[in-house]
């Protein structure tokens, strides 16, 4: 195995089925270029995907994957280049044209009407006429046929809001198939799935491939590429840097192609030396405004000098746990921080938590961690706007001091571009996260709450962020990490707690567990049930 691809590998087309003289590629892109102002999002991209294959497109955030797919689906118009579908040049000015060309897209955020049934969602936009009865009847028959043919089993009369995320995704796939798609694009499809659901999805994809469908899988997860794809294209900074047969490559090689240098896929860290108990949670329960119990008696503790990871599928109470500890959701139970009880009533706020030595990198930096319209320097003061060093006098803030502090943080956390006056919106996901991280970590908290530290963050920045978290641990601080990325939990935390349906399903030392066991717990299966099934 060569460490970097040879020129011939770079030129390799995605044609494992021979030279392709007889069968034209399902999708061929020729010299696609697209610029947004001065940013060249796609530079002369050419790609050939043979029918009946699964082709992966991998790259860091901002590498141009989404732009390329948006061009293919008619959301953007390419500045130059040509789209050839099954050997025929096919201009795609809008998504209607894409559907006519047999292209279906499953977005990362589903486009489903929550209070419609599966059937209603499937015909939405593809009704036969003003009267729904006939369309619904036709769709019902067609769905049955599709379910049988592709083994995608979904109750047509179930409401979307009652379905699990995995099922909702299957509805999206059915929608595309109902519109006679024979090319399916999936954008980061496993981001919201449990490992078991992801496996199920891959079985469906494999089935689609057997039936001759072509699948384009966009992801940043190397493991998925290795597991399911036939060929893989790597994008970096708007360019297609390589297209290789999956069987002939390795995760390490792909990672290097993605970032253009060698990366550490695993976090290097010494064994933890946990000290005194910093955070102690006893019987923590949360009921939301609708009266639904979100946390049902959580007990956990975090000691100084250790990283405790909370694993779980999104929506099983992790967000509520962070909100309560962060001071902006009311709860019952007891939380001791350095031995002192925290106020869990609705009167508590983020500021009192910060005074107690808790820093918080929230799960959703766009919704909570940052004000996107604020400049970087204004975001550096966010949550710490009453810090004494940021005040000029009793009335006015010392903006110059905040800007100076921001310059320092930008330098120490390698934020690019290094412009304290750029609005947060103007930074990439990784750099936005670095701003939040710099703000919270440099307060030198006793406890760092950190939710989805690398969501939407490119590989280069992931490495940096993980290093910083480990450094904080090594400095004797406590870290509570919440992540839906099991890989991240496993590589970063010293101890893993799995949450399911507002409860703690189990606790393991990272060294003594594996992905399979945690995956079972994440799906709500207890040890005994696991044993019974195995």
């Amino acid at each position, binding site marked *: 195995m060569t460490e970097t691809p040879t020129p011939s590998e770079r030129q390799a087309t995605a044609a494992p089925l021979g030279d392709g003289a007889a069968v034209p590629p399902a999708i061929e892109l020729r010299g696609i270029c697209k610029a947004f102002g001065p940013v060249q999002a796609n530079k002369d991209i050419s790609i050939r995907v043979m029918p009946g294959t699964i082709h992966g497109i991998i790259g860091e955030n901002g590498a141009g994957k989404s732009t390329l797919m948006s061009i293919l689906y008619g959301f953007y118009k390419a500045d130059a280049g040509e789209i050839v579908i099954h050997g025929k040049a096919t201009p795609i000015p809008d998504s209607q044209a894409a559907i006519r060309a047999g292209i279906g897209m499953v977005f990362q955020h589903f486009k489903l009407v929550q209070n419609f049934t599966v059937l209603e969602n499937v015909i939405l936009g593809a009704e036969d006429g003003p009267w729904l009865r006939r369309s619904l009847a036709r769709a019902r028959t067609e769905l049955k046929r599709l379910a049988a043919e592709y083994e995608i089993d979904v109750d047509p009369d179930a409401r979307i809001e009652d379905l699990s995320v995995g099922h909702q995704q299957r509805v999206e796939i059915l929608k595309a198939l109902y519109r006679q798609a024979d090319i399916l694009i999936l954008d980061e499809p496993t981001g919201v799935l449990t490992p078991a659901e992801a496996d199920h999805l891959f079985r469906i994809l494999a089935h689609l491939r057997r039936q001759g469908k072509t699948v384009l899988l966009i992801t940043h997860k190397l493991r998925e590429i290795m597991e399911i794809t036939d060929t893989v294209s790597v994008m970096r900074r708007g360019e297609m840097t390589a297209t290789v047969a999956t069987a002939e490559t390795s995760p390490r090689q792909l990672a290097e192609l993605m970032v253009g240098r060698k990366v550490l896929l695993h976090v290097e860290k010494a064994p933890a030396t946990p000290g005194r108990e910093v955070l102690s949670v006893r019987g923590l329960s949360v009921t939301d405004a609708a009266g639904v119990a979100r946390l049902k008696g959580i007990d956990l503790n975090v000691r100084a000098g250790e990283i405790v990871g909370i694993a779980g599928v999104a929506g099983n109470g992790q967000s509520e746990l962070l909100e309560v500890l962060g001071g902006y959701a009311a709860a019952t139970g007891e939380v001791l921080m350095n031995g002192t009880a925290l106020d869990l009533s609705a009167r508590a706020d983020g*500021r009192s938590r910060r005074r107690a030595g808790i820093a918080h990198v929230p799960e959703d930096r766009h919704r909570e961690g940052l*004000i996107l319209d604020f400049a970087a320097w204004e975001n550096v003061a966010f949550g710490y*706007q009453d810090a004494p060093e940021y005040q000029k006098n009793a009335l*006015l803030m010392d903006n110059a001091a905040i800007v100076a502090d921001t310059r320092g943080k930008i330098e120490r956390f390698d934020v690019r571009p290094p412009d304290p006056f750029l609005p947060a919106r103007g930074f990439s996901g990784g750099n936005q996260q670095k701003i939040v991280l710099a703000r919270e970590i440099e307060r030198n908290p006793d406890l760092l709450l950190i939710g989805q530290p690398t969501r939407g963050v490119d590989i280069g920045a992931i490495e940096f962020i993980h290093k910083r978290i480990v450094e904080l641990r090594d400095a004797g601080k406590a870290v509570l990490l919440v992540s839906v990325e099991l890989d991240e939990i496993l590589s970063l935390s010293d101890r893993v707690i799995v949450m399911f349906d507002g409860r703690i399903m189990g606790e393991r030392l990272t060294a003594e567990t594996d992905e399979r066991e945690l995956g079972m717990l994440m799906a709500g299966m207890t040890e005994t049930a696991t044993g019974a099934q195995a």
Partner: protein
Amino acid sequence: MTRLPKWADLALVPLISLLLAGAISAVVVLMLGENPWETVKIMVDGAVGSPYAWGYTLYYATSFIFTGLGVAVAYHAGQFNIGGEGQAQLGGLGVALVCLALPWPHWTVALAAASVGAALFGAAWAAIPAWLAAKRGSHVVITTIMFNYIAAALIVWLLVEVLRPTGQMDPATARFAAATKLPTFQTIPGLDLIFTKKVPANVTFFIALLACVGVWLLLWRSRLGYEIRAFGKSESAARYAGISPVRVIMASMLISGGLCGLMSVNNVMGEAGRLLQNSSEGAGFIGIAVALMGRNHPIGIFLAALLFGALYQGGAEMGLWTSVPIELRLLLQGLVILFTGALDTMVRMMIAPFFRKRGAQ
């Protein structure tokens, strides 16, 4: 969407909106059988053609600066205060009560006291909708509009039943003592060289300028302003940061109401010398347009207030000297609001291609 350069965003877009509003008004003038060009000349001449005209334009602009600033402060907190009209009228009540309460020795003392009274009454009138929004989640657009009607009814009742001196026919308070009379521009040393005729513009104009600076300091230099802007941009993020929604909504709405109330120092104390019915004459609503057009920034609000002051004064002249009814002024104002507020994006889309080409080359 193409990002426009800052100058285009701040100057070109409002200018085009203004021209579009003017063009449509010109068509209406044509249909009324008048010459649009002559009408424009009369309006411009009547608004800025002489120191006398400026004396009126600046008087109106003073009121609009206050209400524009008021709307802007609430807007930055994500609150759309449409109650400037009612808050201004209550502010007028505050001015009247202060002016009639004591035999003030000098206008400076009276001005200081009346300003406090105006701001307090305006703020108090905003306090109830603010409290309902902060605690109960009521929408301030609805509540402040309703409070405008309540204010109007309250003032009429007070003027007719309580404050009217016995024997007086019209619903108004007694005239304020001469010592409370604010210096108008033609009596201020220095300015009297320019303003030779009696004009209504008075020292309140300078308070309005101070208010511009004050609002700028508040929003962009103080911690409260930081919290107001953060809350206005993202409530969920503000919650994370520990910014209290109740505090921000109350503070921003009280300041907003106070600023709207302050405009009454200009008209009630500076001009009328007593409190009349409907003293604010729609300035509270014009403040919304001024804030919109001024991009909720004190400098923009100052310029927009000058423009609306000129429109108001020029429109009055037009009604006086042409057969075009004075209501055309309302049409023109309405169109400016429509183009700067509702159709802002349309104007941007129209000019965006010119900037896109330049960027691509």
